[in-house]
């Protein structure tokens, strides 16, 4: 493994029961970069994040994070590794029974013996970084979707992780919040010296902030490149994705018999 890569994925297969989700994925995530994994809904992007976080075990292949083979770690080692990872879930997944402040302080209290005054300062700094220091005593239910996402972001970076993972950070946000989150992802990555993996299907926002993009479709990587390469790409899949065309390599229709056959065929049956 090259020392420049924080995460390396080699020839990875994964299946739920008998249904294959990922087929022979290989990937390299260099240290300090923001990398996006893109693809349509249900192509296995989120599954890939879970494999990196060790919540799922691959049926074949290797996942290396900072030189450690994630599928082969014991429980304690895995938990030790996860303390150095932060993850933002699709809808934030804030703990709804405690305040914004306590959400951000959660990992500090669980994993460290720091005095409460120090925790307080750290939490306020994290919340300040996402612009919500003033909202620290609110409950999660009182936040808007964009604010909740920012609080979750503050929580994900609470312990200054080396790797930050985002699962659909832009889903369901208005354009302003979307821009804010995009800028935060970039800034926080650079400020913390971390590495970021972002799973999303929002191509326009991603092109603005990431260093590298992997395109996935049907469990395989179909295209990759820097934002400039992607914009210039002639690949029909990338073209369809970037310009949001309804039909192309990703078909509009679910597989079916030709429509003429289905409609006329049934008519023939009824006549008989």
């Amino acid at each position, binding site marked *: 493994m090259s020392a420049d890569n924080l995460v390396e994925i080699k020839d990875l297969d994964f299946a739920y029961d008998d249904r294959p989700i990922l087929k022979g994925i290989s990937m390299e995530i260099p240290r300090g970069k923001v990398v996006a994994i893109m693809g349509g809904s249900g192509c296995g992007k989120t599954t890939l994040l879970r494999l990196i976080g060790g*919540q799922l075990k691959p049926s074949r292949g290797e996942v290396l994070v900072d030189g450690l083979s994630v599928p082969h770690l014991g429980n304690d080692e895995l938990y030790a590794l*996860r303390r150095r990872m932060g993850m933002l879930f699709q809808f934030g997944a804030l703990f*709804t029974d405690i305040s914004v402040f306590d959400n951000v302080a*959660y990992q500090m209290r*669980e994993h460290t013996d720091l005095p409460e005054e120090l925790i307080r300062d750290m939490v306020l700094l994290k919340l300040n970084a996402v612009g919500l220091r003033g909202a620290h005593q609110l409950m999660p239910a009182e936040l808007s979707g964009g604010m909740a996402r920012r609080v979750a972001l503050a929580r994900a970076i609470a312990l200054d992780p080396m790797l930050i993972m985002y699962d659909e950070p832009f889903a369901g946000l208005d354009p302003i919040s979307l821009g804010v989150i995009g800028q935060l992802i970039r800034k926080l990555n650079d400020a913390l010296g971390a590495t970021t993996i972002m799973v999303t299907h929002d191509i326009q926002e991603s092109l603005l902030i990431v260093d590298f993009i992997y395109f996935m479709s049907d469990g395989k990587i179909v295209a990759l490149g820097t934002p400039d390469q992607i914009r210039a790409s002639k690949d029909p899949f990338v073209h369809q994705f970037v310009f949001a065309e309804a039909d192309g390599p990703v078909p509009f229709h679910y597989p079916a018999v030709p429509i003429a056959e289905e409609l006329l065929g049934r008519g023939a049956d009824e006549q008989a």
Partner: protein
Amino acid sequence: MSKPSSGQHVLLSIVARLGHQVNDALQRLGFATRFFIMLLACSGQSFRRLNLTIREIYFSGFQSLLIIMVSGLFIGMVLGMQGYETLQRYGSADALGVLVALSLVRELGPVVAALLFASRAGSSITAEIGLMKATEQLTAMDMMAVNPIARVVAPRFWGGVISMPLLAALFSATGVFGGYLIGVVFIGVDEGAFWSQMQASVDFRYDVWSGIVKSFVFGVAVSLIAVFEGYDAVPTAEGVSSSIKGTVVKSALAILALDFVLTSFMFRET
């Protein structure tokens, strides 16, 4: 052409569905067992932070106080009235205290308190854990290197196990008081006979203690069902609501079936 007739088809599909259901049920039972072992294994870890469990005793125990005491009082008063009706026909109204106390301490206290507990505290435990699962809070916790079974499930389980016997005792005690209220204060059964006959016939080890043991067993069963149903919920709104229903129905069945088994063990001698 030798197509199976439609009758055969129906039969085959019934057999196939039955097979699937048995298969699913066994799989769930296996998972439940594994879950229970994980829960016990994590319990040491969560006992080291006792305030988590104390919090859950507050939610499942303290917050059930009112419903338990009011129901206990009413059941005791009904027992007092019905018991007096029957006993006075045989001229043994003095034994009213015995009847009220024995029915409550041996059966009604543990069973009715457990049924109330399942619908009041059990369902809310399931809802809480199920919603945390549906909103990915449990996954998030796991990704933060905090074991959700130790942090969320085990405290709720032990909170229920500790609360249940106390609630059942409280139920029986308020019930006896209710019986006293109706029997002695309103109807006018002799107070001395009421208490002394009761004391002479209710044995601590035999009656009171077996009631406590029963309620402890019910507490384990209901709490386990509640946390498991929540943890195993399908992470959608419908999934959580069907889990809550599952908690109430399965707890009730478990309580009544266990009560039968325990009673036949405990009171075999007489």
